[in-house]
């Protein structure tokens, strides 16, 4: 038993190390990725410049912290597995991966984690610049809150990774699964709280949105970290619930898909 877990640990560790050095090669690109995530700051500008936040009873400072946290959560929960998998499956690269005694999605998972580590310093620089322009919003979160929000950001990343992996498995049936991902991205963009906090949504949306996974992707971790009001136990349990719902679905679609898979030329 110990040997097996050691083996798995070593595998994951090696994968992470390989992918991290891989990612370090593309520092400039990752910096650009980080910059391309600054939309929340533009939104913040609209909110505070038009005093829209008065209506939802959130002060300027808390709102700017919210959007900064939304930026951070987004930075560490970006997933692009469907695009990698689509390219690999179109190029026929999936076949050698399937022979290896390791689910290829571990490889993508390690890729994402390594990219997040590489991205971290750039995100910090952007946060630092944000504080220079906005010194009033500097705050230091509680250690326990910080840990909890790291956990919930990771859970949000896991949810999105699972959803995208399920979409990626559709590559076994259709060749272009990325267009389905682009479709799913639209509700994620507008309902997750990246552009406007979920509190500000009209009541007819608020009544059902907390049952969907969307508010737990960005709104919940960002509220938690920024010290805005939020229901911690409900948020975390909903995140875990969605993971438990999505994981079997992924396993099912993966086993169906690999049965269906026929490599190019065979």
């Amino acid at each position, binding site marked *: 038993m110990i040997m097996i877990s050691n083996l798995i640990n070593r595998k994951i560790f090696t994968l992470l190390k390989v992918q991290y050095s891989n990612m370090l090669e593309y520092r400039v690109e990752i910096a650009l*990725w980080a910059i391309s995530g600054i939309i929340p700051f533009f939104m913040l500008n609209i909110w505070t410049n038009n005093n829209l936040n008065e209506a939802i009873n959130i002060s300027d400072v808390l709102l700017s912290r919210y959007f900064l946290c939304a930026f951070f959560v987004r930075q560490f929960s970006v997933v692009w597995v469907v695009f990698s998998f689509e390219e690999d499956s179109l190029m026929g690269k999936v076949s050698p991966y399937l022979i290896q005694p390791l689910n290829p999605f571990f490889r993508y998972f390690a890729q994402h984690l390594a990219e997040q580590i590489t991205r971290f310093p750039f995100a910090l620089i952007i946060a630092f610049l944000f504080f220079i322009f906005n010194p009033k919003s500097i705050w230091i979160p509680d250690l326990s809150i910080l840990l909890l929000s790291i956990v919930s950001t990771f859970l949000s990343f896991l949810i999105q990774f699972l959803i995208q992996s399920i979409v990626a498995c559709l590559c076994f049936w259709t060749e272009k699964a990325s267009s389905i991902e682009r479709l799913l991205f639209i509700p994620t963009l507008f309902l997750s709280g990246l552009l406007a906090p979920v509190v500000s949504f009209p009541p007819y949306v608020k009544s059902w949105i907390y049952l969907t996974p969307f508010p737990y992707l960005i709104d919940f971790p960002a509220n938690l970290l920024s010290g805005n009001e939020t229901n911690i136990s409900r948020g975390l349990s909903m995140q875990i619930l969605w993971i438990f719902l999505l994981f079997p679905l992924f396993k099912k679609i993966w086993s169906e898909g690999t049965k269906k898979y026929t490599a190019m030329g065979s």
Partner: protein
Amino acid sequence: MNLRKYLKVYRKFLHTSLASELEYKTNILVDLITAILSLIGSIFLLSIFFQNNGYIGGWKFEQALIIQAIYTILNGITNTWFNPNLTEIVKHIREGTLDFVLLKPIDSQFFISLKKLNPSGFLEIMLGFLLLFFCIRINQINLNLSFLTLSSITISCSICILYSLWFFISTTTIWFVKTWNAIEVLRSFLYIGRFPLNSFSFSLRIFFSVFIPIAFITTIPSEVFLGLSVLWKILLEVIVAIVFLITSRKFWLFALKFYSSASS
């Protein structure tokens, strides 16, 4: 420059890329749903902004919808022409196939900018026009000749500026090889074109009209629609568009001097 030859070549481009894209029919349907949802989403976001305020940056909700309509049209144009072609430049340069483009007895910029076409963007353009007609009705805009000419001039200038921005970034591939992410940065900046420029703070307004002229792309045409526009703004947009087109052309020719193909 032989115009007829170029038209003929373009017809062939249209034919081949339509034929290859129509192979993925379900894809086009999915893209249509994406475009509709994305429009609904941005109107939803706008309605949140206007929930308790009558005005955002001096614009009413009905007026701000015009900006959404123009943004949707321009985004459709981007998805139909700019995105499929200009991301192709990256591939050409990485794989060294730009050589084949340069060897052809045809202008390389023409070839590279218009070779491909993504028909699902048409649907987005149509969606944008539908919203625009709706806005014309609810804002009670009189259609007359001078209005039509002014609006078509400003919109075509916006298209030129947008094209030049995309082409600029794609051209830098010659030095940096991988510019997917720079395109992503441009996309996220363009996103603010969905909102009236006046709703941003002064410093951002300066940034988006001087450094990256996104302000010109949607706000000025919308002002023309509402009859708020002043002549110097329209003239300025025309000048900016011409300057951008000429510099993007010069920049391409300049960059080509640095192109060394994949194996030489």
